[in-house]
């Protein structure tokens, strides 16, 4: 008889439990889920937890069918909602879930024909107790810094079992107090064991599922966030590990991770700070945190979780930040610490595990970036060097020829000499004002024209130059000193070696997304060995900047012509 009664109560309870599991699973697939598990104590999250688990309580009561109604009491799974609500939301939420479930219990089971009796009140009180007790467990564990163990199914089972026992005790006490002790005992004798089993196992199972879902979700979002950050920071010019690039990176990380604040330091100074406390964490100031200095010194990750080890800002007592993850940035090449990246959370927020993982991934990412930055910087320097070499090669020769030529004609044609001096100063003014290493094609052409005016005066009718470049291409961007040295070479190694008239044609052919500048002379004296390096250097410079699809090729029909083709991409960057 006892066995049959037991099963009679047990089976429907198991059914409820399965329905809860199903519902909880559905919740894990909605945005509400993050609110359930991110340990955040913010009000909206608490409200969501309250609503979800109050709903569970109400369902737990409503599912109960008359068949398992024993006198007025019902074997039910209300406790699952109360326990989980308390554990996830803390004492206040637990209490509220419990009392909501309780009040619902009171009114759903009573009617005019069946007024509120002691058992209704007892059940309501017991449910409230369940929620409050679980909430206290949450409070206790979070104070202890063991918030993660909240997700342990064993703990949940234990809590649910204890509150289940408490439930029984409360009902019995109420029964005795109201003089219905025997009735209460008979009731509990029947439903206590199935309820204890169903509620504790059910709560544990649901929590187990939540934990697994959370883990999967954490990993996924940690890697997607890392990817998003990698993607966004990729476009930041990582020439240098400096304040400018750090500021952008810190901003992106803060925005993507939604942590309280993000800081990037080098070994001595704060490079960038984004988020809470921006007002007193000023980029450029020396590192104030001893924790950070320790990380730099020991090359180890440091985590001040805000509970067992608190983070206190040294700059301002009232700083909101209360926990910090400090990760060294290493130059992988020599495993040397070059700085740190720090993620902060404010005092009223717990450090999410996902962000801890993410932070470490980010440090890897940035470390790689720094290495790439070094390489990039060196490349940039090499380009700059070559540019300087080119400049140095061009100027003295040209200046010498120009001045000598002008000297020769001052007596004969003073006006022309004055004009040439203007061209010359124009040429050098342009050299002076070139700050970028790219200019518009039009600018480069003007430069070439100034140069040619002088050369034409030098060679007079031995040199004819024709420039035919479509107007609309003049806004295209070219590396500075791309055309001028080639034209100079065509004269120096080409037409100037001609006995007759030298002719130079400068033309441009447009393709879909590129264009080809051609400098052709009628000397045809190009010899492979006699590149004089400049053509090669320009080719190298173009390839470095735009890739191997672009650059210079030279063709020559001996004694007839030499054609230098300069292949460049159309505008992608601005000068």
């Amino acid at each position, binding site marked *: 008889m006892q066995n049959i009664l037991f099963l009679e109560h047990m089976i429907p309870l198991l059914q409820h439990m399965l329905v809860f599991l199903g519902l909880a699973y559905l919740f894990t697939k909605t945005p509400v889920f993050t609110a359930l598990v991110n340990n955040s104590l913010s009000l909206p999250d608490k409200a969501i937890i309250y609503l979800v688990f109050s709903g569970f309580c109400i369902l737990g009561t409503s599912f109960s069918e008359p068949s398992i109604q024993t006198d007025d009491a019902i074997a039910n799974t209300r406790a699952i909602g109360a326990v989980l609500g308390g554990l996830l939301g803390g004492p206040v939420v637990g209490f509220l879930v419990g009392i909501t479930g309780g009040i619902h219990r009171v009114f759903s089971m009573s009617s005019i024909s069946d007024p509120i009796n002691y058992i209704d009140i007892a059940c309501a009180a017991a449910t409230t107790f369940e929620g409050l007790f679980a909430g206290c467990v949450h409070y206790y564990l979070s104070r202890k810094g063991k918030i993660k163990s909240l997700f342990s199914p064993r703990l949940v089972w234990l809590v649910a079992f204890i509150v289940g026992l408490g439930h029984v005790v409360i009902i019995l006490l109420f029964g005795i107090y109201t003089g219905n002790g025997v009735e209460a005992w008979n009731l509990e004798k029947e439903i206590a064991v199935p309820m204890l089993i169903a509620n504790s196992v059910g709560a544990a199972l649901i929590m187990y599922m939540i934990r697994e879902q959370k883990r999967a979700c954490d990993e996924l979002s940690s890697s997607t966030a890392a990817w998003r950050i990698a993607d966004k920071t990729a476009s930041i010019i990582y020439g240098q590990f400096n304040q400018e690039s750090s500021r952008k990176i810190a901003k992106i990380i803060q925005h993507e991770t939604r942590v309280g604040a993000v800081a990037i330091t080098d070994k001595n100074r704060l490079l960038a700070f984004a988020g809470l406390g921006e007002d007193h964490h000023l980029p450029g100031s020396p590192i104030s945190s001893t924790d950070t200095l320790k990380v730099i010194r020991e090359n180890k990750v440091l985590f001040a979780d805000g509970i067992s080890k608190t983070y206190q800002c040294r700059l301002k007592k009232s700083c909101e930040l209360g926990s910090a993850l400090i990760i060294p940035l290493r130059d992988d090449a020599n495993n040397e610490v070059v700085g740190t990246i720090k993620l902060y959370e404010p005092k009223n927020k717990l450090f999410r595990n996902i962000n801890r993982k993410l932070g470490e991934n980010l440090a890897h990412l940035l470390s790689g970036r720094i290495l790439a930055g070094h390489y990039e910087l060196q490349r940039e320097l090499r380009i700059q060097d070559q540019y300087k070499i080119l400049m140095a090669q061009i100027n003295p020769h040209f200046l*010498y020829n120009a*001045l*000598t*030529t002008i*000297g*020769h*004609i001052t*007596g*004969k044609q003073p006006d022309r000499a004055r004009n040439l001096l203007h061209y010359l100063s124009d040429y050098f003014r342009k050299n002076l004002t070139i700050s970028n290493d790219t200019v518009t094609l039009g600018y480069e052409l003007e430069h070439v024209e100034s140069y040619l005016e002088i050369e034409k*005066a*030098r*060679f*007079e*009718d*031995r040199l004819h130059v024709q420039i035919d470049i479509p107007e609309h291409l003049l806004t295209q961007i070219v590396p500075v000193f791309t055309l001028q040295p080639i034209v100079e070479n065509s004269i120096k190694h080409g037409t*100037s*070696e*001609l*006995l*007759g008239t030298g002719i130079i044609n400068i033309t441009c052919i447009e393709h879909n997304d590129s264009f080809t500048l051609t400098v052709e002379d009628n000397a045809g004296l190009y010899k492979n060995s006699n590149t004089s390096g400049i053509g090669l250097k320009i080719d190298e410079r173009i390839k470095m900047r735009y890739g191997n699809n672009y650059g210079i090729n030279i063709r020559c029909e001996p004694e007839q012509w030499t054609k230098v083709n300069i292949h460049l991409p159309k505008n992608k960057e601005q000068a």
Partner: protein
Amino acid sequence: MIRTIIVDDEPNAREDLEKKIKADPEFDVIGTSANAFEAIKDINNKHPDVVFLDIQMPRISGVEMLSMLDKDNMPRIVFVTAHGEYAIEAFKKNAIDFLLKPVKDDRLHITLARLKENHQPQPVVTEALSTELTFVPCYQGSRDYLINVKEIIHAYSNPMTGVHLVTGDSDQEFQTNLPLKVFDDNSQLKRCHRQHMINPDYIKFIEKLENGLGQISTYGNHTIPVSRNFMDNFPSIT
């Protein structure tokens, strides 16, 4: 009057120097040339006393040009240069005349004064500077060419038309302003006749004819006379 030729490929430089030299009444500028091709012709025709010679010129430099001039009719050379060529600087300032571009008036006056004292050729200097010919300036119709000496099979002079060069390259014939004497001194060509020279690399065989004369057959199937006086240059036939 000191008869002077100016050789420079830059017109304004040429004119400027011409004007400055002309300012000295003792100098007569009898010609100007823009390159070595013109200059050789000019010098051979006009036999100047002094040549102001630019070193940096198209195709044939001033120094190279020295080896294309007849040593027996060498004018006095004043080098004009933009860069302090080491070949020139190797000589002490007094051993050779040279002016740096741009030519400064006072420096030019010193040179002109020295030339007025003595404008005899300086064979030591020019010989030291002249080297084996590698390329020979020549022309075909109105077009100028530079021919590698190694390609020349046969050179001959015609009293009416001057010196002709026959090359192995498709049997072409060019004319040059260089006298045969220059090839004697500065090339591998061998004199076989007062009017003929042969490149030994192209000799197929040599026949002995009557009267002590000979005849060279080349790989290009040309026949070239060998005169009695030059038979000694070809010991294989004797």
